[in-house]
Every structure is written in structure tokens, then in C-alpha cells.
């Protein structure tokens, strides 16, 4: 019995087929029958990512060594060794989770990873140190509880983020959940969102004021608004922002539309995807995000392109179908609303009462719905262990049900907790080590994985974040109220996965040479704005050695408390004081002691090895540029491989059918790669009408034009497809089945040759 067999009936058939396909692709790559670049993008689009040392090299502090894995030189992508453990990203639209999903995550973390699940700044979760052979079973076990990892990475629409308080927030215009959900479902696997030069990120926010959705730092951000109608009712609209993003070159999104009717949400998004796919940069990966396209051609020209695409789109019933069922996926409160009784508070012992009050002040807030609270479970550095996940699932089942969401600050929230249950929930969380106070405060430091697991990491962002968290937590009770609400965010490099640009105090890792040694440093970024959906970005004021960053934080905070004007906030303070003065104040900390004087400066936080940037690798964030044609041809090879397996199992009819379908898949990919003609390029499908369309279009555009003709064999290979098409449904004996499988193989080879000629 395998997980594939065990969970056969528990997984949505489409998802099941996708995972089985991926398992086959793994096998094909292992046998060298799938090109490594194609495989890399295929696995990235399934959330299967590389991580540090996956080039098979590791520096042990004194020298770089080769990790001698059993599979030798076999790779799972360029410079990525097959056996090297990797990361698995699991996308969770708007961060939503159920108790059963928490338990499934706990199980896969325990069996296939390192017992820990990591929450990201985009409401995904990640597993680390995963073997690639285990990934199909992880996908199956997650699919059985309704989670897909599809398009979690790669050059596609990434996880659709959304405000975790949607539906319960006091300040939202309306609940963005059903819109974010419709957007995520509509774009998942959508043909118009498969040929990007880089990733594409979307976010929804329920209001303009808060930061929960960070809509203005996304490629495409939607902010909910209502506008009054003449009849006194209100109309739901979205303020649309395009071209935002952090990364090495941060861009504030531009206002595209002040009031987009909700009926236009999906078609506009689709049109923007088509423009990005058609006009976005493909070769220069550093400039392949939509923000660069808009910067290059201007917002007006971008809008013209989008509007032209919008006019071309054939209406799709899914654009508005979800509007008829906006409440279909609403949270269902498990218990009736109930106030927290005074006698329950009085019954707490003094020390417990103080601890509860401290936790409640930062980690529980009232919902819009009276009698309910939203509880934030603080996850240090975004991490939670498998045991803690199970405890949390149990607490959720008892107190609030399936109302859990991941936040962009790497925490979890439980919604619809009756106020009466707050003490019991706090106790349950405390028993699991999950009742740490300080959510959303200065001690709740956000960090990307940095050098712990990321190939691009320069400095140990998590090590620094943990150190700051420890030091600030110890002093938290005595911190001035003015600094308690500040945000600190740390990235291991300039790419800003830790979102350092939008923090009050941000840090990103850099390296500096001192004598003959490398010394880990962090650039200090000040003046970013977290509120109003990350309304403005901070700027770096100078690099400080990693070891001296806690002192730098203490100095900057101390100066702020001492020198701020009445009611002045940190961002205003940094503007008033000016970057020159702030930089000057840090100057004494920039000095690095001699190597023989204090070696601690020459290693990074929580890593005793001498610091080196020699462990950096080539990141997979940019994915691989693989055209839909290449994907199609790779898929045809997968199908013909399955035909061979069917032959081995003496399933002649199945083998012949698969061989035919492999040819159809290749033909369809070729047809779709041609410039658009008057006819609509069809896709290979299970229905006979679709097959007919593929074959007739292939005949018209590739056979009759002789584009598909081999220089020596002419149209011979195309006739294999035509014959198989004529014979579909006929009884096939084993000899004919074998012959057809061989013909399919030749047809696919001819398709590859044709592809090269077309290119």
C-alpha cells in the first residue's frame, strides 16, 4: 500500500492526476529523459524549491567541501544536486487554514522534514530539508485536506495574499475573502498566466489604513472600497494598484483604477496577466517583473495594452459566477458570542492574571462582531513545531473551529474566539509554548530564512532576528511606550524577502572585507512605513557589523525616546533628524576589531564557522524560462512514457490510447506556439471535439504548410497522428499498440525538430 493508493478517493481527481504526473516527471528526470531546466521549472511550479548547499558544496568554516551524495552527478535543475535536501513551499490563499490542515502539516513536517513548519511573509508555509522523492507523497497528503502546492514557486501567479482579518475587521470596507479566493482559483493553472518572465504577486486588502494586505507593494494590489449610489445603496469596488514590489529595486505600486467594479476584477486581472506575458522582459531576469515593464513604457501605455487585451477576451462565466455565492465560504463560528466573565478573571492567581493581561493586550483584539476576539499566536521567526501544530489544531477545534490564517508578519491568527474562551485558549496555547505575548510589537521581529536555508542569503537574518528578539523581550517591560509598537524586519540579502523596506527599522545582509577576512554586516534601513498598506519605503543609511546590530538598535531607539517631539512617530522623527545625523550616530559601531582581537565579528549569529560568502548559490526565485511549447513537449514525453509502462503491464488498449494522447499533446503545444491566426488554437483534451480541433488545426497550420515536414521523411511522422486519430476507439492488439507507442516517440522527436525550426 502506498499513499497514492491509500488516498486515491480522498483527493480531487484533477489534483490527483497532477501529482501523479509530477511523480512520473521525477522518474523521467532520474532516468535522464527529461531536460534539467524543464524539470527545474516543473518542480518549482509544484512548490519544490532548492535550498542552501544544494549545489553539493558546503564550507565548513575552513574549507569548501563536496557533499558526496549517493546519486552522484544527477541533478534536479541547473547546479542543483538530486539528493540535496530542498524546501517545499505550500501556498495557502490569503493564509487560510483549517484544523485538519494544521494536523496534516504536522504529519508531513515530522515524517519528511525537520519537525518544523515555517510561515512566510506571503502567507505561505514552508518545509525544509525535504528529499525530492518524498514530494509527491507530501503533495498527496496535503491534497487530501484540500491544499495544493501548485504554482507556489516558478514564473507564475504566486500565492494570492489577503488581509488575515478579512470579515472580522472593524475598519474594512467589505470582506475581501471571496474575491481573493475567486482570483486564486481562477488564475491557478490559467493558460494566460503560464508564460511570464518572472513571478507575479497579487494581494487584497480590506481597507486603506492598515498594513495587513500590503497591497501597494505587490505586482497587483486590490484595496476594497464602497461608493454610494444615487439610490442610497453602496457599490463594492476595488482601488487597483499595479507595479509594486520590493526586491533589490523597490517600486511603489501605481494607482491603476480608483474604483474597479467587482465584476471586472477577474477579467482585468486576466488582461494584465496577458500583457505581462506578452510584453514583460524574458531575458534579463533582474528586470523581468511587471514593475519594470510599467517603468519602461509608462502607466498610460500599460493601461492601453491592458484595455486592448480586455476587449479581446471572450466572456467567461467564472468572471461573475462567484458573486452569486459570496458567502459560500464564510467562516462559521463554532460557538455563540459570549463575554469574558469578570469572575473568570478574578479566579486567576495574581501572576497568571498579569501574564494573561500582558498576552491579551498584544495578542487578542475584539472583532467587529461583538463577543468575539481575534487571537494572534506569535510564532518566533515564523516557526512552529509539529507538536505545537497539533496542539494548536486541538485548541482551534475546541474554541473556534476552522478559522485560522497565516499573517504577513509570520504569525497565525485564530478568528471567532468567543471572549469567554480567551482564558482557556490562552492556557491551551501556553501548554504548547505558544502563548508568547508581543504580537505586532517590536519584539515580534520578522525575518526571511537568510543563510539558514536560502542560497542567496549573505548574512544570518534569522540569527540576528533571534538575538534581537531575545534582547528586546528581556527589556520589553521597561521599553518606552513610543518604541513598543515599532516594527523590525530583517532580510539576509538585498532581495527583501524579510520586507526590510517597510519596517521602522529594517536590516539586510551584506558582506565587507576587513583585511583578508570577510565580515558579516547588515545595512540599516530606516523610515519605512508599515501602515497604509506599506505606503512608503525606507532607505539604507549605512552598514554595521552584524555583531554590533543589537547595539545599533539600542542606540537608535534610545535617541528616538530622548529626542522625539511630543507625539512624534518614528518615521517622522527620522525625517526630521535626517539620515546624515542618523548615519553619524552609528559611525562608532561601524569599526571592526582586528581578527586576532575579537573573532566574534568574523562569524555570524548562531553560526560558529568563520564567515564566508562562498556558500552562496544561484537562487531559484527567478525560476527557469521555459516556454509553454517546451512544457507541452515535456508533457507529451511523460505521456508516452506512461504508454510504455502500460505496454509493460500488457494493457494494450491503454498503451495505444496514451500514445495517441502523447501525439495530441505535442501537436497541441506546437499549434499553440504559432502566432495567433483566425482559428482559435485548441488544447488537447479528453473530449473528442477537442481532439478533432487539435488534429484539424495541426493539419491546416503545420501539415498543409509543410512546417512539420522532416527534411528527409517529409510528412511521414504527421501521418502517425492522423492514423491514430482515425483509429481511435478501435480494438487494438498488442502489436499495433507497441507500434503506436514507437510512432508516438518518433512523432514527439519530429515535434522537437519542428519546434527548433519554428524558433
Amino acid at each position: 500500500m502506498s499513499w497514492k493508493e491509500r488516498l486515491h478517493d480522498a483527493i480531487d481527481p484533477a489534483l490527483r492526476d497532477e501529482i501523479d504526473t509530477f511523480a512520473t516527471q521525477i522518474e523521467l528526470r532520474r532516468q535522464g529523459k527529461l531536460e534539467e531546466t524543464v524539470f527545474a521549472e516543473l518542480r518549482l511550479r509544484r512548490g519544490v524549491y532548492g535550498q542552501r548547499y544544494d549545489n553539493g558544496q558546503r564550507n565548513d568554516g575552513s574549507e569548501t567541501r563536496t557533499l558526496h551524495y549517493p546519486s552522484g552527478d544527477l541533478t534536479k535543475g541547473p547546479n542543483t544536486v538530486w539528493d540535496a535536501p530542498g524546501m517545499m513551499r505550500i501556498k495557502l490563499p490569503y493564509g487560510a487554514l483549517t484544523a485538519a490542515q494544521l494536523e496534516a502539516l504536522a504529519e508531513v513536517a515530522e515524517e519528511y522534514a525537520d519537525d518544523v513548519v515555517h510561515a512566510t511573509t506571503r502567507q505561505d508555509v514552508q518545509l525544509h530539508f525535504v528529499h525530492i522523492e518524498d514530494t509527491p507523497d507530501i503533495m498527496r497528503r496535503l491534497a487530501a485536506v484540500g491544499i495544493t502546492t501548485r504554482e507556489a514557486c516558478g514564473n507564475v501567479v504566486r500565492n494570492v495574499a489577503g488581509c488575515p482579518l478579512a470579515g472580522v475587521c472593524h475598519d474594512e470596507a467589505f470582506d475581501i475573502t471571496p474575491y481573493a479566493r475567486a482570483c486564486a482559483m481562477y488564475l491557478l493553472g490559467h493558460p494566460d498566466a503560464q508564460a511570464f518572465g518572472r513571478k507575479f504577486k497579487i494581494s487584497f486588502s480590506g481597507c486603506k489604513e492598515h498594513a495587513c494586505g500590503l497591497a501597494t507593494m505587490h505586482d497587483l494590489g486590490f484595496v476594497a472600497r464602497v461608493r454610494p449610489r444615487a439610490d442610497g445603496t453602496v457599490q463594492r469596488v476595488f482601488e487597483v494598484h499595479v507595479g509594486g514590489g520590493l526586491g533589490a529595486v523597490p517600486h511603489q505600486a501605481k494607482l491603476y483604477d480608483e474604483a474597479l467594479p467587482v465584476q471586472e476584477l477577474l477579467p482585468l486581472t486576466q488582461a494584465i496577466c496577458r500583457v505581462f506575458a506578452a510584453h514583460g522582459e524574458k531575458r534579463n531576469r533582474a528586470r523581468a517583473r511587471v514593475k519594470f515593464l510599467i517603468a519602461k513604457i509608462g502607466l498610460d501605455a500599460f493601461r492601453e495594452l491592458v484595455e486592448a487585451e480586455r476587449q479581446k477576451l471572450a466572456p467567461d462565466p467564472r468572471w461573475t459566477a462567484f458573486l452569486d455565492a459570496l458567502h459560500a465560504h464564510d467562516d462559521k463560528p463554532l460557538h455563540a458570542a459570549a463575554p469574558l466573565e469578570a469572575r473568570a478573571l478574578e479566579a486567576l492567581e495574581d501572576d497568571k492574571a498579569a501574564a494573561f493581561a500582558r498576552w491579551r493586550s498584544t495578542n487578542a483584539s475584539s472583532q467587529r462582531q461583538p463577543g468575539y476576539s481575534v487571537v494572534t499566536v506569535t510564532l518566533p521567526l515564523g516557526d512552529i513545531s509539529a507538536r505545537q501544530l497539533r496542539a494548536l489544531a486541538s485548541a482551534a477545534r475546541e474554541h473556534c473551529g476552522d478559522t485560522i490564517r497565516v499573517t504577513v508578519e509570520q504569525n497565525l491568527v485564530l478568528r471567532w474566539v468567543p471572549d469567554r474562551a480567551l482564558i482557556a485558549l490562552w492556557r491551551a496555547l501556553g501548554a504548547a509554548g505558544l502563548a508568547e505575548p508581543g504580537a505586532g510589537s517590536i519584539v515580534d521581529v520578522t525575518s526571511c530564512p537568510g543563510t539558514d536555508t536560502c542560497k542567496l542569503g549573505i548574512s544570518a537574518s534569522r540569527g540576528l532576528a533571534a538575538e534581537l528578539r531575545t534582547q528586546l523581550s528581556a527589556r520589553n517591560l521597561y521599553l518606552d511606550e513610543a518604541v513598543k509598537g515599532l516594527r523590525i524586519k530583517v532580510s539576509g540579502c538585498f532581495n527583501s524577502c524579510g520586507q526590510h523596506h517597510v519596517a521602522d527599522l529594517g536590516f539586510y545582509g551584506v558582506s565587507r572585507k576587513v583585511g583578508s577576512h570577510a565580515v558579516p554586516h547588515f545595512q540599516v534601513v530606516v523610515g519605512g512605513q508599515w501602515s497604509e498598506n506599506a505606503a512608503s519605503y525606507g532607505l539604507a543609511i549605512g552598514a554595521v557589523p552584524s555583531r554590533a546590530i543589537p547595539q545599533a538598535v539600542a542606540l537608535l531607539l534610545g535617541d528616538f525616546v530622548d529626542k522625539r517631539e511630543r507625539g512624534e512617530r518614528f518615521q517622522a522623527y527620522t525625517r526630521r533628524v535626517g539620515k546624515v545625523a542618523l548615519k553619524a550616530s552609528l559611525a562608532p559601531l561601524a569599526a571592526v576589531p582586528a581578527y586576532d582581537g575579537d573573532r566574534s565579528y568574523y562569524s555570524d549569529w548562531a553560526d560558529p564557522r568563520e564567515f564566508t560568502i562562498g556558500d552562496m548559490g544561484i537562487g531559484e526565485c527567478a525560476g527557469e524560462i521555459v516556454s509553454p511549447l517546451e512544457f507541452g513537449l515535456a508533457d507529451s514525453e511523460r505521456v508516452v512514457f506512461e504508454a510504455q509502462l502500460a505496454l509493460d503491464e500488457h494493457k494494450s488498449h491503454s498503451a495505444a490510447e496514451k500514445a495517441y494522447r502523447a501525439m495530441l499533446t505535442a501537436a497541441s503545444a506546437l499549434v499553440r506556439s504559432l502566432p495567433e491566426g483566425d482559428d482559435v488554437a485548441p488544447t488537447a483534451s479528453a473530449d473528442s471535439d477537442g481532439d478533432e480541433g487539435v488534429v484539424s488545426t495541426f493539419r491546416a497550420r503545420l501539415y498543409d504548410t509543410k512546417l512539420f515536414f522532416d527534411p528527409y521523411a517529409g510528412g511521414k511522422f504527421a501521418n502517425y497522428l492522423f492514423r491514430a486519430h482515425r483509429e481511435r476507439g478501435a480494438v487494438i492488439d498488442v502489436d499495433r499498440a507497441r507500434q503506436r507507442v514507437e510512432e508516438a516517440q518518433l512523432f514527439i522527436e519530429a515535434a522537437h525538430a519542428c519546434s527548433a525550426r519554428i524558433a
Partner: protein
Amino acid sequence: MDPLLNIDIHRDSEAVAHPALATQRISLALELEAALDRDALITALHRFIRDDHFADEIPVDVANYAHLADGPQVLLICHYGQLSYDVEGELHTLRWSSRRTRQRDFETRLRHAADVLLRAARLLGESDGVDLRARQGVLRFAIRDRLAAPDSAETRAAVEPYLASLAETLGVTLQLVGHASSRRAS
């Protein structure tokens, strides 16, 4: 933790061909008498890599989760398994969890896991600042494989003979504690 029952094991009555015996995911842990210094442990495990200890397991990296209140604190990630210092309430353990194995049968895998764990404990005990003191005569066993080894009497019956044999070698007796997939030899 008090044992719930004592199990009398007869080596000859071993179950055969149970899927649990094909598992790669064997976990053995020592109970520790006191918490370990995380920083010292991180340094020691990095040194393990540098000095080629456990080279057969192909050590890849040291993972630090010392900020977790409950769960793994520090791990040595290897290709074939993970060595972890783990905290669960008052219980502190040093655990080896195999993930891939080269050994062909369950008994050899089990003994290999015990060998790796005990070697690691000895080396850590000799490392600067790692005051590792294991509770004498206690070894915790689990299979982290819910497909091959569900928490059941059948799984228990299948693995019991091998555990007994290992216990005999180590000079301890088997006791069942907690649930079926977690054993404690003492």
C-alpha cells in the same frame, strides 16, 4: 514517565512481512537529565561536520530552532537522517531519526540507528560546553511513518521482537509507555 505495562517478548514469534519492517523512518532517543547549552551544541555539531564524524550519514547542515518553546532545538541534518536535541515540556531528548537507510532489513536498520545515536551521545559528551548526561538505561523508540507503521497492535507485534533483541544487546528490558508507536527500553 511510568511504564504502563511490561511486555514479554519471544524472539522466535516475530511477525514477518509487516510493512512496518520495511520502514526507513526509525527514531531512537536518549532521555537527558538536564537541558543542553544550545550554543555549545551548535558549535559541537558544526565541528562534527568539519571533523568528518558521521561522514557515512552525509552531514549537510546544522539547523537552529532554539527559539521554539517546544520541539526540536538544534539539529544536525544528514542525508540519511537527523540528529536532534528536542524539548517537550520537561522532557529533553537526544534523538536520531533515520530518513533514508542503506541497511536492508529492519533489525540492521534498528541497530544502526542505535549505533549512530550512542556514538553521537558519546562524542557530544566529550565536546566543550555540552554537558550531556543521558538517563541510564532508557531508550525511546518510535517509527515516524504513519503509512507503514500505524499506531496499532499489529505494528507493535511486528517490531517487538527486534526491539527485544536490541534491548537484550544493550542489557535493558522493554516496556511500553504512552502509545503503541513509542517505546521505552529501560
